[in-house]
């Protein structure tokens, strides 16, 4: 077994991520929603549905449901925490930032505006898992595309 965390696995499966995987925040569906988008990763079968309740240009409430690996679930959970109460434009800017982090930007990984989602910076070392971490964010991007 490699010493320390040369493989990056300990960082990938750190407690905060496993906690979000096992106790996802904002899980479920919204009875009243403005936007609903379902996305899937056809290669691995992960599925995610994102509900947004918009109040003007503010994300008043958000929920997600579906199933998938720890990375996709934890990432979606962290995202919901981050975007709840934010303006749509702010949330979309975070999605861009998060994407930069997953593609190896050290600067994005230090950006406090990403909150707990920064724990996922280590996913950048596992290229095949990047799409897992992006599933929820891609759903956000899609569901807010036509918004101001």
């Amino acid at each position, binding site marked *: 077994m490699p010493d320390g965390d040369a493989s990056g696995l300990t960082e990938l499966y750190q407690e905060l991520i496993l906690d979000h995987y096992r106790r996802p925040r904002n899980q479920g569906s919204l009875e009243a929603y403005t936007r609903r988008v379902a996305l899937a990763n056809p290669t691995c079968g992960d599925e995610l549905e994102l509900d947004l309740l918009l109040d003007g240009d503010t994300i008043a409430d958000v929920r997600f449901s579906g199933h*998938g690996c720890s990375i996709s679930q934890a990432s979606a959970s962290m995202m919901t925490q981050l975007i709840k109460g934010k303006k749509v434009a702010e949330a979309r800017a975070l999605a861009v930032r998060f994407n930069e982090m997953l593609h190896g930007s050290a600067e994005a990984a230090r950006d406090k505006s990403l909150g707990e989602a920064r724990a996922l910076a280590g996913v950048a070392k596992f290229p095949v898992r990047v799409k897992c971490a992006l599933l929820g964010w891609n759903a956000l991007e899609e569901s807010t595309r036509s918004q101001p």
Partner: protein
Amino acid sequence: MRDVRSDFPILHREVHGHRLVYLDSAATTQKPRQVIDAIVEYYSSLNANVHRGAYDLAVRATEAYEAVRAEVATFVGAPDPNGVIFVRGTTEAINLVASSLGRVRVQKGDTIVVTAMEHHSNLIPWQLLAEAREAHLVMVELTADWQIDLAGYRRALERSPKIVTFTHVSNVLGTINPVADLTRLAHDAGAVVLVDGAQAVPHMPVNVAALDADFYVFSGHKMLAPMGIGALIGKPALLDAMPPYQGGGEMIRTVHDTSATYAPLPHKFEAGTPNVEGAVGLGAAIRYLDALGMDEVAAHERALARYALERLATIDALTLYGPAGDRAGVVSFTLADIHPHDLATIVDSEGVAIRAGHHCAQPLMRRLDVAATARATFYVYNTREDVDALVAALEKARTLFGYAHA
């Protein structure tokens, strides 16, 4: 069986600083030097387009290509090499039959029978056919022991289906289906039978004539040969009565301005320049497997599967999927709440390559009541040490996810 590892160059590379433990042979197998050399040799001394040249090289290339057709026939017990059609693989073979036979045999309101353990490649072509012909697609359910439910199968046959299709060996469960019995029942009901042999031909002796399957299909790349070559074994009388699948060179007899007559079997179904390199590699793979002996190959894999099932059963909170009795070298499992993709990532860090996902069998996944499983599959080059490496790597996954050591 002799130790064959030294024949496989790729098994001597490292992955993340570890010996490569390759447990994904159901997806594709690694290639022995004998197959790699045969391909290099083909391009170094024999390459020309087949069936087209009067010069020596073209004649030799054609001979090499056609010799493999005869070898394939012998290897799977097909009585007539003209019933061996070279295709890209299992998927293309099934699409060929669904589209060509389907066009003449399936009409509005007819029934096509499949099972709930099919790979998507033995499901979607039939879905497309049923949709195009407004036919019914009936899916036979499985028993609690993950076998095809015979009562359900007989009920489906009461509909006098035009085509019945099932896999010989499940790529998820390792179930080995009683092909001869299922085929006889389907024939009694008047159906034409296609058997998906993708997970059987590489792993056990197969005699297509004894099974009496009308169509039997498999892929070279799952049996030590290159990707892009496979075979459709069909009864010549049926193939003769079917319209061509693709049009082009090679498959014609005489071409008029607005119509054509077609070449006899097998060329009628081999439009365009074929994958000669692939066929040559397939021939080398067949000779390699023949030398090992398919009985020995089957015994080796089943012993490994038994050992793996035994070792995996000792891991706390590990769930195994598949029949309790005899099975092929396919072991699917899940471990506690660790998602199969996470398992695959973690064991990869130890050099262990396993598959995670739905294995192109989503209807089966729904019946297993999981979205995905992890899957280890075995072949001639795997050893008990490979199983031990998998078990050790799974313990690492348990640790990372906060489970105590058993």
